[in-house]
């Protein structure tokens, strides 16, 4: 008997991407199909463990017959759809989105964004020196997390991970509206007065470094964070019997960060406070 559950069989849909015929299982998004076909579409708010929120709009593509551009990350492929990923129109919106973000948010720790800015010839400076920015200071109110909302693109991933998609703690939400909208706990209190259980699953999904482990934040501030010198080793957590897989990020024989593989059948990328932060005891080396 085989065990790997195959799920309900899915039909294949036929449609075209940039004029080339593609086949994708029913339920796939345009982005899934693009990636399967080797097309690169930039994404920021999309997360492999989360339902697409399509808030950043950097992944927009053109679909024949659609009045507006459509987000590749969330729009499901349909039979006969004609998708164009690299038209002037799509590139224009991507460029403007990058300019709008880069002119208002600190993207210095967002992976990939510098290359996209170059590729799309985005010029965030053209809104002038007085262009409104978020102007937030890092919030350091506990020993485990730093929330630097100056780097927040409001992708909602942390809210979704903390909320009903994974952790169900609901410690954070978007508060306010429009440009003043911010991620906050109730009454905008310090994290230590909130429902936060410090699982770090919000940090796991944050695409910009707005949320970071204090261990990383401090090293970055001190200029000693060196990703190139880090090794990543996946092992199993030593707390409780659930058997969560931990990926230990080690620099100079010190564990500096703990993540979990997003495709792991036990964790799906999530951990609890003990697994995420309870490593210090092995390196109390006297």
């Amino acid at each position, binding site marked *: 008997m085989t065990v790997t559950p195959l799920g309900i069989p899915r039909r294949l849909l036929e449609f075209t991407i940039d004029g080339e015929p593609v086949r994708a299982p029913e339920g796939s998004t345009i982005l899934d199909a693009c990636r399967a076909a080797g097309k690169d579409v930039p994404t920021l708010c999309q997360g492999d463990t989360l339902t697409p929120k399509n808030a950043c709009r950097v992944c927009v593509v053109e679909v024949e017959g659609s009045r507006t551009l459509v987000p590749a990350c969330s729009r499901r492929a349909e039979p006969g759809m004609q998708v164009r990923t690299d038209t002037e129109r799509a590139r224009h919106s991507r460029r403007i989105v990058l300019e709008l*973000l880069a002119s208002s948010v600190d993207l210095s720790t967002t992976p990939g964004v510098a290359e996209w800015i170059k590729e799309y010839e985005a010029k965030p400076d053209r809104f002038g020196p007085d262009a409104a920015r978020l102007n937030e200071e890092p919030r350091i109110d506990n020993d485990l997390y730093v929330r630097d909302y100056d780097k927040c693109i409001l992708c909602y991933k942390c809210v979704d991970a903390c909320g009903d998609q994974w952790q169900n703690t*609901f410690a954070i939400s978007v508060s306010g509206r429009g440009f003043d909208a911010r991620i906050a706990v109730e009454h905008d209190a310090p994290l230590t007065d909130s429902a936060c259980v410090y699982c770090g699953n919000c940090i796991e999904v944050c695409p910009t470094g707005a949320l970071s482990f204090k261990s990383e934040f401090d090293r970055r501030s001190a200029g000693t964070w060196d990703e190139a010198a880090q090794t990543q080793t996946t092992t199993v957590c030593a707390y409780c019997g659930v058997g969560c897989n931990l990926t230990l990020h080690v620099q100079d024989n010190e564990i500096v960060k703990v993540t979990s593989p997003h495709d792991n059948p036990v964790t799906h990328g999530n951990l609890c406070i003990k697994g995420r932060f309870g490593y210090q005891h092995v390196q109390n080396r006297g």
Partner: protein
Amino acid sequence: MDLHFGDSMPTDEERAAVDALLGPPESSWEGAAREGTTAADLRWARGGRQARDRRDLLLPGLHALNDRVGWISEGALDYLCRRLTVPPAEAYGVATFYAMFSVKPRPATVLHVCTDLTCTAAGARELCAGLESGLGPGVHVDRSPCLGLCERAPATLAIRAGDPARTAVSAPATVREAVLAATAPDSAPEEPAAVSAVPQAGSEGLVLLSRVGVVDPASLDDYRAHGGYSALRRAFALGPAGVIREVTDSGLVGRGGAAFPTGRKWQATASQPDHPHYLVCNADESEPGTFKDRVLMEGDPYALVEAMTIAAYAIGGHQGYLYVRGEYPRAIHRMQYAVDQARARGLLGDDILGQGYAFDIEIRRGAGAYICGEETALFNSIEGYRGEPRSKPPFPVEKGLFGKPTVENNVETLVNVLPILTMGAPAYAAIGTAKSTGPKLFCVSGSVARPGVYEVPFGATLGELLARAGVRDRLRAVLLGGAAGGFVRPDEMDIPLTFEGTRAAGATLGSGVVMAFDDTVPLPRLLLRIAEFFRDESCGQCVPCRVGTVRQEEVLHRIAQRTGAAAADDIALLREVGRAMRDASICGLGQTAWNAVESAIDRLGAYE
């Protein structure tokens, strides 16, 4: 749910406000005092989905607190969350989404002063300045987007928290009247009747406005004496499929702005296998310059009740929601009374007209968010979430309110169903043009002698409409369709007021706004106000709109005093940002946020 609550406790008043809405708490887990309930509570607690399913009472709960106390304190929010099993962080996110709520202490009385286009043209700035010096610290003055009182600009709305909360409209407002309304709302003069907004009232041939000013809006008997409930009888005779056929054949399209064929929407919902089906009436009339739905609700409330009943019957729904914007206290009051009366008389409830058909209407109140007029944002608002639009597809006919098949129509659209059934589809379709059938309401305001709601058949020209309203001299521009619409020039008066006609002219009918401006108001100032409006009202969900509306406003500030070459680079920038907003925003708000500015540049030659 294992919710976390802080130490803040509600005051007795806050607790009473919530309990008045929800009833007293049943257990200490829900916030009852431990004494008396402990023995049972500590042995058996019910929770789970039943407890979580009350999330949709969050917005009514926030209103209850705001109405009673004037703001929402930490302890009050926590208590409400405990009662409804809602995480406090999420409730905080919802409370801070709406402009009419405050999570910081403020005086019990808030005076909303409309500073939108028509009111600004009518002197709202001076009014504000006068009020701020004329009112003491006991009143909080709030500069507000359009209050939907454009026929009586400038307008103010005073809301005094208490039990019950008091409201007083002052329009057209003087400093003295507004101060009186804010300081003594009970003794403020009665607002003029809805009919004062209908210059055509009583004339022959009116279809939609025929009863406004003619019937007593409180009287169900009066309504019936003027043809009320004959359409519902006809609907029962036709059966649901027959009603949908009539509506389809009538050519009725949505009057909210998108002009989607109503019959098709109903058919698509009726045929969904998933149940229940919901009917939502969108009365969140927030497009600046629009007030027709208010006039209908205030002047002929039973018509909407009857129309909603017919719509729900056609789509196989048994529950309807009427979502009215929070700035319309009188409309809410009138509609609530009408719904209660209809229910008492068996015209809502389990067995309407003895036909064995059950339907009821719940009224939900908005709290100051233009975006909630977007159909899916409105669903989120009713459900107790932030009023952020959802991605489409899936469309509401498939997954709408509470994830179920839903028809959402605006007030005017629904009210059109009554004449369709009483006169028959062919006769209705004969009104107007071939592609735009039926009568249409227009909200005419600004530089006209007789502002108000006008009913004309589709096909009348802009010039004819404005002539009827008594357009004043020195007309500089007409804004068609509201802030999300566009400007036309005084020399374009022959544009036919139909969907196809305005489209051909590169304009839009939108929600039926016709705002006339003479040359006393500088155009850049109008554009800046429109840009401010979109910046304020952007929900913040998607980047093009959240940041794009800010950048648009910044540029318009920068070029307010510039023209020609000095503005050219910035106008090019506006175009680029505007194009991305139009192409890449999630919903209509961002997609249209650049429309009016673009039309002013291209059509009126602003900044030349």
